[in-house]
């Protein structure tokens, strides 16, 4: 009987972290899509700025306060909160890798809470912008950027909610531990993008 060489893979694992798993790639490719969207939004922001002598434009009606710049308080609070949350998410990520179920369970619950607070803070951020979306092009683009990022805060929190429920009620299996590490990547991305967007919306009109 003639023979052939074969590679036996029956001892390979079913799941692996990071670049091993297709989920990591799928997640990152979707984030690449969203990154190109935010890059284009930022480009739009500065493109529209060319049409204005003053950016943001002066307020039309003289209500107090006169300053047309977006109010810093809620946006900054959100930035600090989200930056701090990354440490926690890192811990959740680590717990998932070390198969420490309790750590992941508690960490996810706190992250979920942070996500909810960030969404509430964001809804106040809209009113901190001194224009509505239909006042002028400045208002339109700032609302759009805030809205798109809020959309990600919401989907991020929903995904966290699903994995929190899973971690409390279902087996802490390898597949879902990998999912938790993918969630962590998404979380860092949402925060990282916010650092950029925060600088664009709140800082560059003040200093740039």
């Amino acid at each position, binding site marked *: *009987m*003639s*023979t*052939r*060489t*074969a*590679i*036996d*893979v*029956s*001892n*390979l*694992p*079913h*799941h*692996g972290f990071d*670049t*091993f*798993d*297709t989920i990591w*790639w*799928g997640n990152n*490719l*979707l984030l*690449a*899509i*969203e990154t*190109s*969207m935010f890059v*284009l*939004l930022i480009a*739009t922001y500065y*493109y*529209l700025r060319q*049409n*204005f002598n003053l950016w943001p*434009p002066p307020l039309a009606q003289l209500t107090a306060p006169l300053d047309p710049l977006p109010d810093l308080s809620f946006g900054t609070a959100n930035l600090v909160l989200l930056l701090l949350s990354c440490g926690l998410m890192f811990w959740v990520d680590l717990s998932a890798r070390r198969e420490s179920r309790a750590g992941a369970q508690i960490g996810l619950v706190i992250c979920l809470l942070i996500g909810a607070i960030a969404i509430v803070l964001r809804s106040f951020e809209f009113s901190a912008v001194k224009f509505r*979306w*239909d*006042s*002028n*092009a*400045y*208002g*339109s*683009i700032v*609302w*759009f950027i805030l809205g798109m990022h809020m959309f990600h805060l*919401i989907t991020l929190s*929903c995904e966290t909610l*699903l994995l929190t*429920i*899973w971690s409390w009620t*279902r*087996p802490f*299996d*390898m*597949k879902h531990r990998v999912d938790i590490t993918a969630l962590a990547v998404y979380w860092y991305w949402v925060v990282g993008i916010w650092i950029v967007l925060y600088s664009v919306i709140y800082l560059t009109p003040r200093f740039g």
Partner: protein
Amino acid sequence: MVERSQNLPVDAYTEADEREIKELERVWACPPGIIGWFTDTDHKAIALRYVVTAFVFFLFGGIEAALMRIQLARPENHFLNPDLYNQVFTVHGTTMMFLFAVPIMTALGVYLVPLMVGARDVAFPRLNNYGYFVYLIGGILLYVSFILNTGPDAGWFAYVPLSGPGYSPGKRVDIWAQMITFTEISALCGAVVVIGTIFKMRAPGMSLHRLPLFVWAQLVTSFMIIFAMPAVMLASSFLASDRLIDTHFFNPAEGGDAILYQHMFWFFGHPEVYIIFIPALGFISSIVTTFARRRIFGYTAMVLSLIATAFLGFGLWVHHMFATPLPQLGQSFFTAASMMIAIPSGVQIFCWIATMWGAKLNIKTPLLFVLGFVAIFVLGGLTGVMLASVPLDLQIHDTFFVVAHLHYVLIGGSVFPLFGAFYYWIPKWTGRMLSERLGHWNFWLMFIGFNLVFFPMHQLGLQGMPRRVYTYLPNGGWGSLNLLASIGALILALGVAVFIVNFLWARRFGLIANANPWNADTLEWSLASPPPDYNFYRIPVVEGSNALWDRSAENPVVVGLSSTKRETLVTSVVDAVPELRYELPGPSIWPLLLALATAETFIVGIFTAWAFAIGAVLTFGVFIGWFFGDPNYENVAAKEPPQSEEPHRAPEVLRAENA
């Protein structure tokens, strides 16, 4: 990584093998009934749906083209009224670009990439299914509204201010904007599916430098989709929000900017040309290799040209906007870039010619279409270099010269290779060979018809005939060339009809195709035609860049994958070293439900903003079901560890060791 070599019999079909194949057939089968049809995740089934749907839209787009040619056949014709004519040319362009060209290129990728890289399915089978349904819904939306006389009428690129709230009241442009959203979501899903499959599911031995050029082309295209498509989604979202909730992105009175729309549209729109064209380059490389019976000349140069084309493709968009008041220095830059992109295209054409040079060509219909492509595309490329020059472009902007150019590039660069690809791969898809004689008829009718329609348009454009006019006066002297073009359209349509006849004929009477009727080199030809649901009984080990031609007598394979669940091999990105035995998700109704939730969001969103809140709730509901409610797959714990498969494999391994 755990890997050990052992010896297996080459005449593989022992009793144990038969049992395992039966098991694989059961595990990978499409569930029965109409529900099964909706839930199936087999990449081949989904790809064929894409192909059929896109081809139907191609016929619709063709009918619209025919209507326009009838209208323009003679001066002062009253076959279509101006309003209907506007809708017809808009729907024609929109259909051909968004509902035909992009999806059908995705479709061929989704069908062939897993087979060419040696995987049992794509990396994300359910995302793939979702992408198809979203695309289908988008297409239906466009045509239902067209039938109801609310078809978009502002051109396929829907420039503001014409498409803005001031000049296009009603819902027509909103339909266009949302249809864009659907098709772009679908294209993005397809891109993620294809990249994931190429990066992680290649058979052992298929390192990146052995990747077939078809797969390289799909990879490059998918990355272009990821970076280009968000631009048009944003442009159409801005447009929709300007129209529906009174934002001012494109309203100059409130600091908005109409040119911004053009920038965003063409930042997508120019790469779009390459998104349609680069997959066609992949078809051509496959066909040339097979019919010249030679390895491709300059593989590395070909790959680098593909990548260079993709990069340069992002630096050309402004040449669509030379007629707008942009700084001259900027225009010169884009002229230079537009001329530069001829270099990588030229490299590829020369490599193909070098491959065919002195080879014993096997002139079958697929190769005929490739040769037709070379002729037509070179002409389209030449007018492209002409249009890249600003003064000439200003002169003939918005004339039929541009119509001629873009059809030479798109039909020549994409539709001809696509028909070649149909002739080449339909035997694999259906198990039947198309008729060569009808194929030759098909090619010559299309080739002659095409040139008769579009060549006179160069002249018409130079004589000043503007595009997008519903009629013209008799004393302009444009009548006879227009009549000639209309006759050409009839011949072109006949060519397409011959293809349909050929296909239907072959379904019943065509020669039965064996596994490899063309003696081709890529892995899909090692499988039966059509391939079984699970693709590969044993995933092959690839030994060279032309997988089948380089296969040694030993013909090594992978063993140890489960046949009691949908398991495939996951390998490393660069060298394709086995990493995981990965269970792919099986059939599921959730992708369809998710697509319906998406549809609710964007279609009802045309009428009320509440649709977005409702859509969010629906979507989250679907995700809960998807995440928790699927015993087939998500309940992994029940199947892990995979003890159940051990008894199955034992006799075979024993026999191998004895041998």
